[in-house]
């Protein structure tokens, strides 16, 4: 008995090291699977509030730029509104009953990373603002990512600049769709894979979300084709996409809530269960 005790005392540093090291490896591996990482993320109370203090100070520096972006968006939305008005003047529809599947809310980015291989953002809204995991996050220019961890007041977003991210996207003109991934090289260039060989692609073509998931509605802008090559097996095309968003410089974002998400997911689950 004493021998064992002596062994522990003599090797206490080594045992402590092994214990803590394996615990950290466990935490690391846990983050590799999508939103399993419940404890160690920046949506928790302490780091969330520290980040929001920081953001409340630094956000003043970019006020001018943010204002221009808001103005641009306002003009764009006003133009759209005018065109709708022209269309529906004759019908006199009560707009209170126009049904929309998607509900938009806004939040502020309080921490952003883009230089790692698995990038995350932290935003200043959480469960209290009725956010849930798996909601889409966009800006006025294009998509940003998907909410993966959430606390009462904060949430972390898995950015599209993350090697775990795979988002359904399509060519705006030809409706061929593929998956959007990131090869970690440039924070403003992402890749679209699995586009069929026969799909007509031109440099400068617009890429939008495909609407094949419950997260993003169809037609949210992503970017434009920068260049493309055939893959080695000559079956599909590999496209480099230049993002419309500047992912290194995000501040105000919109969160998309799909009001039918539960219904769709339940239906799909039932269909699977029947099989």
């Amino acid at each position: 008995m004493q021998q064992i005790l002596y062994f522990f005392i003599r090797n206490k540093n080594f045992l402590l090291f092994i214990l803590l090291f394996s615990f950290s490896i466990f935490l690391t591996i846990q983050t590799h699977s999508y939103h399993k990482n419940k404890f160690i993320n920046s949506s928790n109370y302490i780091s969330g509030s520290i980040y929001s203090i920081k953001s409340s100070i630094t956000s003043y520096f970019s006020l001018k730029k943010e204002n221009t972006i808001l103005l641009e968006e306002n003009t764009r939305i006003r133009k759209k509104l005018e065109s709708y008005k022209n269309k529906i003047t004759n019908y006199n529809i009560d707009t209170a009953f126009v049904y929309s599947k998607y509900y938009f809310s806004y939040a502020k980015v309080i921490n952003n990373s883009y230089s790692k291989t698995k990038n995350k953002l932290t935003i200043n809204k959480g469960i209290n603002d009725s956010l849930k995991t798996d909601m889409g996050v966009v800006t006025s220019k294009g998509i940003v990512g998907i909410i993966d961890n959430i606390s009462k007041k904060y949430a972390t977003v898995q950015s599209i600049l993350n090697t775990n991210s795979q988002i359904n996207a399509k060519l705006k003109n030809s409706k061929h769709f593929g998956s959007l991934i990131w090869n970690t090289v440039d924070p403003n260039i992402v890749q679209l894979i699995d586009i069929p060989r026969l799909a007509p692609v031109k440099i400068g073509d617009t890429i939008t979300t495909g609407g094949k998931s419950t997260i993003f509605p169809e037609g949210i802008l992503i970017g434009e084709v920068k260049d493309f090559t055939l893959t080695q097996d000559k079956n599909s095309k590999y496209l480099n996409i230049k993002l419309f968003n500047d992912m290194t410089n995000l501040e105000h974002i919109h969160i998309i809530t799909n009001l039918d998400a539960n219904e769709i997911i339940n239906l799909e689950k039932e269909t699977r269960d029947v099989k």
Partner: protein
Amino acid sequence: MLNNLIFVNITRFFLLILVQVFIFNHINLFGYVNPYLYILFIIIYPFTANKSLLIFSSFLLGLFIDVFSDSGGIHAAASVFIAFIRPVILKYSFGISYEYNTIKISSKDYLKQMIYVGSMVFLHHFILFALEIFNINHFLLFLNSVLFSSIFSIVIILCTITLFSKK
């Protein structure tokens, strides 16, 4: 004297976390190179002080950085590793006698100091990026990150040591 030492180390611990999280995590030189100054805590932790305490506090230090940068446990793992391996590195960079003299790191001669800081930083970054990238397809990115981040960190850490050393 002893209380003072504990106080200094605790202050350094939190100060380095804040500096790392708010300044050095956002430098992104050439798009992906960030220095990791926070391991300065492990590097200049008193040479003769309790080793178990160092290993445990390094774990906490790394975990704090992980919480702020959403990276699972990679900083914790790398920090714990260099805290554990530190006596070995001290031995080969300063010779066997480091345990008996309590000279501060800033007063050693520059070559020994550079070997010590260099090997600590390199080992830390090697484990850090190996765990972060975790993919054989991005091997070149891994080598690049280790090399450039190490150089950047070594320069920053040596500058900090020189700047804050008491004459």
